[in-house]
């Protein structure tokens, strides 16, 4: 099992090193990878059909509760089949589609990475594991969308897709973590036993919010859908695979997977119905306005995803079965349509439906595939699509009176638009005369079967499943629906439900759609309309937000990082004074207790007064040398203070260092120009206030600390043992070279480094030719 999941990763890894081998015709062989995985999972069919599930567990990061726990049930199986089945077709298709491409090896590496991630995602039982694969699908999608990385548009689309899905991903992580801490486990299996408690927990709302953000972004629900049309910049096999059949369904999978856990709750149902319902209508409407085949498919995909969300939101048994069915239905016909589109694009160099027509003469098989897919999409009876649509209507019609009409209406309308979209892609390019402007690309004499066979296969499958719905039902759908429902669903798929309202609606949909197909052709929109639409579309809005974020970022960054050191220091000081001052004045009760303080004697006061005067001189003098000499007077006065307080070593050192500093200053600065009086009064006043409050704060803290004397046992230890144990009488020196000798060792290293620094600073002049 783990090998099956990881095979994609292993393949990707090997391809980065051995990719050259598969660049040529051997690429076809790579299709064996998904095919063998497909085969592997086929072995599970009998048991899954018997209602069994499989669990596999491998240790990975037990500390985080993350293990490679896989769980295969009906829902997983449905997705596994899609992933590996359609995957196999796409692998073969791509071998021909991208034949001779410079970076074919990379393409397959990404594709394998993606397939592996997707498999992991649908098989994982551990929600964090799900998240890991979830993110991996995003990132591999990023690389796939940006596959044509020399094109700016591709890069931009890849980035947008990653930004949207990535952002959602972080919320999803939050949701998962929250679920984990609410239930104490990351295993879905285990969570199911506490589902009721989870739904009742106060975090439920938050979990839903985060989860939906993750699912909606991934599954391109309004208003996060805009990345998906952009993602169509990817090569068509990618679009077929990722952006219709598999990755975008990850969100759906997630919602389906969590339905038994979090579903059947007012918030859950309402949100999903609202978002899904709106998305399906909005996107379906948009799809009929497009002329680019891929664009049409993108919007119809979004709409289909909306339908799925909508169905999951309804959450009834009907709805869940419908959802399970529609996943398969949609995957089959939409992948087909994409592959068809790819061939058309590949062979004619255009995807504009206005410029296409009559292609059935050139590519009869492709036309067949297109027709079959479009018909299944249209929900023509005897196609699998019919069954899918039937179930949707069934679902909406089974609702309560209040929602019934509205929702059914929306569903019908959406389906009409979708039918139109399917016909536009699957039928319109193949019928009518061949426009003169259309030329067949000369690079292939005959169309490779690798291109058309997969598309035809998908179309045929749509018909087969339509004729024998019990096959998919028994093998896949029922068990998937059971898994979503967390119980047994008893709604066998049937070709024929008899004459009823549902059938009527289907017929109406079909008629109206076909009518629309003949009556309406999308025209080029006026530039004003385009502008307006772009501006109010979520994409426009999000781009606007992006733009203003960027300009805000610039001005915000400039506000703080303005290049002026003094402004930095001011900010730091104000922060320090504000923070600590606030804390100090709100908590500490000021005490003044001078009993332990020593008296002030005149000669001490004089030193103090001279120091103060020297400080003031330093600050206000206009002469640089005066400032420097004043600083040295401050130092010397402090040296006297040290003497008064019994610190001869300190006094000595202070004095020597101070003298050296003055010498240094003089050596260095004697050439500098005069101080400039550069600040205005207002600035000086402001700085003065800040500086004084800083100083006062330090003074106050000092005073308070001084009043609470500490136990000086360490000093006493040093004093008592300096001679007895360390054989020295100058305790300060004994501390320096013995008790705390490690400090002194470091201190001389500081000096060393400073000396080396000075040396290099003055001696080393790097020439522009020296590079590093």
């Amino acid at each position: 099992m783990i090998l099956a999941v990881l095979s994609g990763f292993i393949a990707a890894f090997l391809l980065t090193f051995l990719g050259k081998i598969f660049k040529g015709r051997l690429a076809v062989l790579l299709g064996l990878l998904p095919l063998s995985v497909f085969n592997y999972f086929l072995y599970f069919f009998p048991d899954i059909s018997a209602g069994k599930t499989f669990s596999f567990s491998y240790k990975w990061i037990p500390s985080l509760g993350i293990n490679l726990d896989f769980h295969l049930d009906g829902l997983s199986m449905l997705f596994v089949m899609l992933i590996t089945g359609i995957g196999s077709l796409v692998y073969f298709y791509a071998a021909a589609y991208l034949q001779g491409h410079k970076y074919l090896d990379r393409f397959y590496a990404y594709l394998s990475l993606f397939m592996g991630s997707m498999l992991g995602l649908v098989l994982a039982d551990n929600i964090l594991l799900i998240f890991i694969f979830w993110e991996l699908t995003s990132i591999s999608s990023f690389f796939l969308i940006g596959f044509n990385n020399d094109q700016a548009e591709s890069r931009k689309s890849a980035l947008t897709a990653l930004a949207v899905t990535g952002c959602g991903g972080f919320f999803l992580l939050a949701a998962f973590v929250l679920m984990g801490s609410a239930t104490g486990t990351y295993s879905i299996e285990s969570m199911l036993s506490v589902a009721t408690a989870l739904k009742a927990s106060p975090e439920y709302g938050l979990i839903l919010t985060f989860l939906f953000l993750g699912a909606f972004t991934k599954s391109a629900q309004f208003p996060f859908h805009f990345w998906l049309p952009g993602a169509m910049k990817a090569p068509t096999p990618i679009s077929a695979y990722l952006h219709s059949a598999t990755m975008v369904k990850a969100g759906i999978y997630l919602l389906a997977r969590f339905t038994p856990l979090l579903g059947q709750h007012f918030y859950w149902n309402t949100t999903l119905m609202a978002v899904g319902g709106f998305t399906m209508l909005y996107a379906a409407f948009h799809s009929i306005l497009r002329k680019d085949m891929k664009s049409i498919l993108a919007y119809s995909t979004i709409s289909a995803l909306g339908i799925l969300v909508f169905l999951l939101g309804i959450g009834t048994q009907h709805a869940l079965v419908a959802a399970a069915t529609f996943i398969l239905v949609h995957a089959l016909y939409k992948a087909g349509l994409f592959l068809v589109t790819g061939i058309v694009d590949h062979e004619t160099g255009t995807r504009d439906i206005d410029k296409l027509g009559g292609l059935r003469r050139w590519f009869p098989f492709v036309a067949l595939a297109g027709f079959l897919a479009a018909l299944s999409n249209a929900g023509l009876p005897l196609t699998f699509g019919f069954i899918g649509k039937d179930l949707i209507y069934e679902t909406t019609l089974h609702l309560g009176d209040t929602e019934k009409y509205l929702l059914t209406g929306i569903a019908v309308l959406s389906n009409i638009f979708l039918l139109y979209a399917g016909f536009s892609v699957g039928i319109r390019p193949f019928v009518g005369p061949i426009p003169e402007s259309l030329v067949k690309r000369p690079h292939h004499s005959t169309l490779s079967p690798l291109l058309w066979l997969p598309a035809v296969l998908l179309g045929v499958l749509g018909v087969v499943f339509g004729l024998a719905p019990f096959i998919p039902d028994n093998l896949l759908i029922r068990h998937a629906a059971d898994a979503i429902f967390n119980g047994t669903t008893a709604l066998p798929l049937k070709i024929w439900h008899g004459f009823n309202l549902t059938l009527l609606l289907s017929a109406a949909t079909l008629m109206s759609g076909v009518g629309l197909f003949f009556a309406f052709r999308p025209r080029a929109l006026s530039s004003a309309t385009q502008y307006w639409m772009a501006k109010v579309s979520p994409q426009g809005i999000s781009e606007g937000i992006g733009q203003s974020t960027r300009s805000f970022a610039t001005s915000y960054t400039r506000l703080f990082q303005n290049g002026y050191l003094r402004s930095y220091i001011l900010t730091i000081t104000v922060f320090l004074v504000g923070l600590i001052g606030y804390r100090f004045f709100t908590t500490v009760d000021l005490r003044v207790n001078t009993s332990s303080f020593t008296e002030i004697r005149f000669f001490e006061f004089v030193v103090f007064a001279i120091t103060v005067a020297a400080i003031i001189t330093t600050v206000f003098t206009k002469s640089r040398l005066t400032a420097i000499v004043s600083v040295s007077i401050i130092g010397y006065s402090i040296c006297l203070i040290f003497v008064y307080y019994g610190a001869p070593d300190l006094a000595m050192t202070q004095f020597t260092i101070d003298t050296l500093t003055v010498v240094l200053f003089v050596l260095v600065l004697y050439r500098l120009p005069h101080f400039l009086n550069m600040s205005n009064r207002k600035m000086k006043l402001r700085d003065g206030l800040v500086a004084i409050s800083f100083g006062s704060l330090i003074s106050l803290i000092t005073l308070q600390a001084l009043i609470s004397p500490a136990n000086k046992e360490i000093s006493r230890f040093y004093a008592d043992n300096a001679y007895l144990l360390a054989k020295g009488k100058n305790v300060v020196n004994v501390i320096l070279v013995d008790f705390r000798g490690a400090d002194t060792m470091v201190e001389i290293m500081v000096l060393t480094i400073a000396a080396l620094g000075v040396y290099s600073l003055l001696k080393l002049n790097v020439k522009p030719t020296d590079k590093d």
Partner: protein
Amino acid sequence: MTDNLLILPIFTHLLTAILLIFAWGHINTQRVLSLCGHIIALALSFHLFSKTWKAGILTMQAGGWKAPFGITFVSDTLSATFVVLTAIAGLAVGIFSTVGVSKARMQYGYFVIAHFLLMGLNGAFLTGDIFNLYVWFEIVIISSFVLMTLGGKKPQMEGAIKYVAMNMLASAVFLTAIAILYGLTGTLNMADLSLKVAQIEKKELVSVTSLLFFVGFGIKSAVFPLYFWLPSSYHTPPSATAALFGGLLTKMGVYAMLRTFTLIFVPDAFTQKVLIAVAIMTMFTGAMGALNKTSIRRMFSYLIICHIGYLIGGLGLHTRVALTGVIFYLIHDIIVKTNLFLATGVIHKIRGSTDIRRLGGLYAEYPKLSLVMAIVFFSLVGIPPLSGFWPKIGLFQAALDEKSYFLLGGFILASFFTLYIVAKMWSEVFWKDLPKRAEETNEFTELPFIKQVWLIVPVVGLALVSLYIGLGAENIMVISNRIALNMIDTGYYLDAVLNK
């Protein structure tokens, strides 16, 4: 029980530095010596780590004076982990430097100072004495000053003035805080401080003092609004230096904050709020700063700030889960940020610029190298299962557990912007075609093959380490867990330091 082993990593660098001064000007000798020093340091670090892991906590009482009277060196899991990380990053930068640093700089003591810097870091991580910590800080600072200015041209010097000024201010604040703390407790040993601080009745003054420490360390670890020195200076020095700075320097501030705010001061509610608010603003500011940068090194400088926010936020939450996340993140961050700047150095060698507008086409020209760099960049983003992802689980969980939704928002925001910025950078630097330029110089291809290897090996090596952190997350997780446990329950540390 005194164990001299734990001072050996420090000594290795010291001795190497001394020998390097003796070999002043002899570049080749210095190269060899420096590499030997790095390798020995790495070996010793691993040995120290495994010994510490087995023994729990190792101590060495310098001068044989038992704590709290002498200076105690302590190697607990936190210290040992940092020592190992420093050694790994140090070795990588050391290998890179042998080719990546100009001869002129080598002649004027580049290697010496680099070893002093690493020694200082090791010292800071291993000391158990607050004043000794200050002293090691100063070693690191002065070394970084020298490295920053070594052979610098105008912009480097301008950046250095700001760097120097603000770091010295930070030192002054740190020293002030130490002074007041000494006044309150009469001791400097961190374990002893832990006990003494707990005994103080006037907790308010302790809290005020702790905030002073916060500001001092905050400047060094570049949190909002104290971070200014970092964007002013980090993009100026040579890549090898920038890698040392980017990977290790700000982390030292974070380390100090982690130590003081778990061992000495347990943050009160107010401090927690401050930490969390600062963390959010730090992440926001870093993200905003990085968003529009055209120079990738400037971009990474801001990302450093942004990601410090994770650490401060986790510290602010101060739960075991959060701290586990913080430690894991730190481990990941040191390796990845170091590599980020080394990778940038390679890019600079290839293209002669780090400006996005002048970069491009790397993916087409150097696919394998690009793949390695992709690992680096996407580790930074935290794409699972790469290394940056795992700690986020803990951080998210802690933020949610503590109902700190603003902080969670900050985490998400920072993650998102990092993702966006790195992906955009990737698309511009690697995907985009190389813009046309007047002259095309590729220093990299001009280098002999062996030198190319010297430049690439550290990048690949560190990328493998970050891959290991990501895929072998369990081991890192166990380590982080233990560290976090010891942070919450300091009794073990106190016993080890004071009662032996």
